[in-house]
């Protein structure tokens, strides 16, 4: 079972957190601090797994972002590494070559996608197509509901206000 998912930038900034096991806010902060200390300092050639407090943390670096998932000791670490990659591929397909910035400004969308991929700490869907279909169904509904107001001129007006 996956206990939590963390996205941390190379500078140790948190980009996304999802907790499948109960942690208090204090514990969360501690976990993030501890893990980013361990993971960000690891060399590039070492293995993508860290044994930590009786759990295993699988991480992978994409550009300046670290995707980390914490799993049980006996879980298949390489499989989880591929789940991370699967997640990134879905993000990539959704955002159209995803970059850190997409995730910074649309973290809630990343959460929606993650919710379609993992549920209660287990992989619920391994087909990219199915995930994409569900997400776009949700989005199209959303699009229909909200008025189109994010025109460029609007933003420029805001910026120059």
């Amino acid at each position: 079972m996956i206990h939590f998912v963390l996205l941390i930038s190379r500078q140790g900034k948190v980009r996304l957190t999802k907790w499948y096991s109960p942690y208090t806010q204090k514990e969360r902060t501690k976990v993030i601090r501890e893990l980013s200390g361990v993971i960000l300092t690891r060399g590039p050639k070492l293995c993508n797994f860290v044994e930590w407090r009786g759990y295993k943390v699988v991480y992978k670096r994409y550009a300046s972002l670290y995707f980390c998932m914490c799993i049980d000791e006996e879980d298949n670490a390489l499989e989880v590494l591929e789940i991370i990659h699967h997640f990134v591929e879905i993000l990539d397909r959704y955002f159209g070559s995803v970059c850190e910035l997409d995730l910074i400004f649309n973290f809630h969308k990343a959460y929606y996608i993650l919710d379609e991929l993992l549920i209660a700490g287990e992989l619920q869907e391994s087909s990219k197509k199915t995930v994409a279909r569900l997400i776009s169904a949700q989005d199209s509904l959303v699009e229909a509901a909200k008025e189109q107001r994010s025109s460029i001129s609007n933003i420029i007006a805001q910026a120059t206000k």
Partner: protein
Amino acid sequence: MEQLKTIGRELAMGSQGGFGQSKEFLDLVKSIGEARSKAEEDRIVLHEIETLKRRIAEPDIPKRKMKEYIIRLVYVEMLGHDASFGYIHAVKMTHDDSLLLKRTGYLAVTLFLNEDHDLIILIVNTIQKDLRSDNYLVVCAALNAVCRLINEETIPAVLPQVVELLGHTKEGVRKKAIMALHRFYHKSPSSVSHLVSNFRKRLCDNDPGVMGATLCPLFDLISVDVNSYKDLVVSFVSILKQVAERRLPKGYDYHQMPAPFIQIRLLKILALLGSGDKLASESMYTVIGDIFRKCDSLSNIGNAVLYECICCVSSIYPNPKLLESAAEVISRFLKSDSHNLKYLGIDALGRLIKISPEIAEQHQLAVIDCLEDPDDTLKRKTFELLYKMTKSSNVEVIVNRMIDYMISINDNHFKTYIASRCVELAEQFAPSNHWFIQTMNKVFEHAGDLVNIKVAHNLMRLIAEGFGEDDDAADSQLRSSAVESYLLIIGEPKLPSVFLQVICWVLGEYGTADGKYSASYITGKLCDVAEAYSNDETVKVYAVTALMKIYAFEIAAGRKVDMLDECQSLVEELSASHSTDLQQRAYELQAVISLDARAVESIMPSDASCEDIEIDENLSFLNSYVQQALENGAQPYIPESERSGMLNISNFRSQDQLEVSMHGLRFEAYELPKPPVPSRIPPPLLAPSAELVPVSEPSYSRETHQVATVTSVSDAGSLELKLRLDGVQRKWGKPTYSSPASSTSNSSSQNTVNGTTQVDGAGNVNSKARTTYDSRRPQVEISPEKQKLAASLFGGPSQTEKRPTSASHKVAKASSHAAEKSQAPKAVVVSNEVTVEKTNHQPPPDLLDLGEPTVATSSAPLVDPFKQLEGLLDTTQVTSTVNHGAVGATESPDIISLYANTPASVQSSSAEISVPANKDDINVTSTLATQFTKGPNPKDALEKDALVRQLGVTPSSQNPNLFRDLLG
């Protein structure tokens, strides 16, 4: 210009779907991104919290605005700050009719609330309503929330609806319903136990996603109760077969592998079902063999499936053919350059070794490489493997390695773990008492505060009882070696408390037993300890008790006792201590000293810590007194349990349980009040000591009784903890993971002289060299130390290398000769005779002298030891050639091409992006974003590109890949 830049950035964001987000929020994200320190970030977030608190409380906020506030709250919470003031608004948002808002609300509550939060109860109603919705998206959103928020108490509220959704027309809903039930199972297994048939039905769902999801709860159910699912073996095997044959839709392929995640889950389930069941296992052999053959070993996911296959093979009833394939895969993993695969290889080796212990020997050098790898993760895994393959022949090397590593790390969690492993191995396989004591000393010295107190008690018990045989000489030798080593260590500063307790106890019990040390010497040391650790009460208690024992033994032996001055002052000081325990012991000490030899001997018999002490729990000797009191009209005693009706403390051994039950909450309902029974009213409480006083016994014997019980408390305490005695007794028994045959061959090869071991080694190697790798490559990269280590760990062929170097001239010659002609057994036999007589006169060869010139000149001036070594290496190191040669020559091109196809290479090139990014990561990344076509709109991209050019940032022409995004 500045403004233009801002516009450019905004533009980039706008086109990425920063829909509806106000400038305020964008600014927040930006300023967080630009924050140089954690403190600055915290300041910004705190300011944001203030703003949000104010805004969110305003009346009549438009819903769209509210949604943004909620998202901002999520952001704040994500950064580790408390946003609990806004939780209620997120809860309210889930009530909204619009799906957009509802979804945001659900997202926020699933992120904010743990399942035990008070607000959950407010959401349950909404969830119930949404689960009934016509819109499947609403149902999905509600199910997501169910999976996160529903706790044991609220399961019944939604369970019927979730079960109903198992038959929903949309497969996405069915899947989520399954996962929700899986979650319920985790929370409270009994709540879904009646739904097992539903899971079985869903296994046959025509949507592969639903089928895949069903495997999760089934795995858990099967791991609890294997036997009631044996009938599903056939189904699982046939599903796995179909998956492996690519019968699933293309959408489930992942990197050209057919539905690998489902395959892995199925293999996990099969491993459970086939464990110890020959019949079930036999039906799996074919399909597992197929997967072994079909798996693409070049991709990560292929290797993940292969690894799962190995796990499965090592769990089910063994099949030689599958074991062979598994061993092959393991050797490929271990030879790989990738640390990930090495890690898996080591792990898999640890699993397979249980079934076929001989497989480890082939990989000895790879294992040692991993042990010395700078990567901590790999190292730890390797220690885990070593732990599994420990036997009495290699325990010393392994435990020493573990202790060295334990000393070098700071991670307390792992330190504790490795310390307990060391203790366990030492208890099981210790080759000698002396070694055992030394090892325990080291463990205690470096990790004393981390090991379980039971380990210390176990050690004391072991020293007291000996090793279980009726060999008093060996036991007393063990004790004196322990005393000796403790006297050496005791002076070291800052010893852990647990260790000091052991030291004090052993010194008190056996310090003067063998007559080597005088009582005054030992007592002096004990006083030093008590003074040096004056704020550790437990240590002082142990020290005083030890003092008392030593004096008692002295008196009993008829010697005159003169207390040292420091001792005297220590006892005086302690008799005024705040701790009553210490005080009592100090007074007892003084009382004991003033008694005569006969009395002392009966109070404190020498070496009686193992004697069973009979404790009359019923205090039957008081019966007559009680009887008399009752006749005189006293009220009968009512046990405390009946008086208070709460806790049962009749058994004083259950002290731990008592403590637990006192601290924990009571969950059962309170009993109904009992009707008052007048005769049962408790008598005025008698203090327990008051009961004792009137007993008409001579005060002398009473005192002895008391003292005896005091000492027995500590002994009884250590006795009662019921330590791993079985482990101790197993010490000389069978080694765990090696068959007796292999271990004897090891020891015999150790004892035999060079020539024969040579043959042995060569023979081994030849059998291993079945594979056709070229063994002629020079083996410079393998250091002799490594081979030595390998030999001591595995007892394998490389053992031969080290011997000749330090042996005599002739032996060296003979052995090098033997090495050159190891194929010809005759030559070996001839040299064998020479070596037999020679080595008999030689001192045991010292392996460490390898490089020292003195040895070289004195023993073999003409023979270069290194040359001999090379000669040996040529023949004996086939395994290592396989390691290095094969990877270097044959596999590397494949690997390179593999990496060219996977994002790993992109990763490394795109990593360069982040080099400038640390200055201002938002800035750079946002310009990055503008440079590349985001989304489908080429016009936007062109505009952005133009903007970027204006801003003066041009992409490097040398490396067009540089500005690729995450995936390229």
